[in-house]
């Protein structure tokens, strides 16, 4: 029987591997036929926005770009959504980072903890918070 997992992700792409873990876990859960909801809280809201490309030389070594690339979770987020996953953010945390007006990665929804997150709880069998 299909169940629903909600993941509350607290970390962005750069400070640790939590975002990579959470997005890979979400895909694995979907592979098993279950539903996934993700709430991006705290620094995780940085995963929700499209990149603003910089023209010219980044002045960052390619191997360092590979290491820190904030967009590396975007493809997995998009795939989670394409498979029916529901992903929303905390717009207050976006505002705190000055990114609220930027465009979302396709499928990511504007949200808040009082609305989006508690709505997720109403349809969840399990809640996992990921972040440190």
């Amino acid at each position, binding site marked *: 029987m299909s169940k629903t997992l909600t993941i509350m992700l607290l970390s962005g792409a750069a400070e640790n591997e939590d975002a990579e873990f959470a997005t890979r876990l979400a895909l694995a859960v979907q592979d098993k036929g279950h539903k996934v909801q993700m709430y991006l809280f705290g620094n995780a809201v940085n995963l929700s926005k499209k990149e603003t490309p910089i023209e010219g030389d980044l002045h960052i070594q390619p191997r360092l770009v590979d290491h820190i690339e904030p967009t590396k979770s975007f493809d997995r987020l998009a795939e989670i959504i394409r498979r029916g996953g529901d992903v929303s953010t905390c717009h207050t945390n976006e505002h705190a980072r000055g990114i609220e007006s930027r465009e979302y990665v396709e499928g990511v929804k504007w949200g808040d*903890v009082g609305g989006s997150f508690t709505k997720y709880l*109403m349809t*969840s069998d399990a809640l996992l918070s990921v972040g440190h």
Partner: protein
Amino acid sequence: MLNSVCFVVAKPLGVEQGTLGIRAAWACHQNGFEAKLVYAEEGVWCAIGNPGYHTSLLKDLLAEDGDVYVVKEDLEKRGIAPESVPDGVEVIPASDVAGICEDMETVNYF
């Protein structure tokens, strides 16, 4: 559906995750979920009435009959007197934390 949620705040005052913990607890409480908030480890620094957003939200939660706990041993380790904790916050021994967690359907650590 999850009906009950425990939030453990272990980050000190000034670290965003601690604020996210109480905000999530407040949101759940206001939306009818059974929510318990436990301050442990460095998180006890958030529960001693320091001025600012965290304490103001804590007061709102207590005024709305929110369940808030702080771990006695973690206060003692930091030289914080239990009397420093605002009225309404229950000072509990560390041995009681497991029971609180067992009573809830999910436990989340901030």
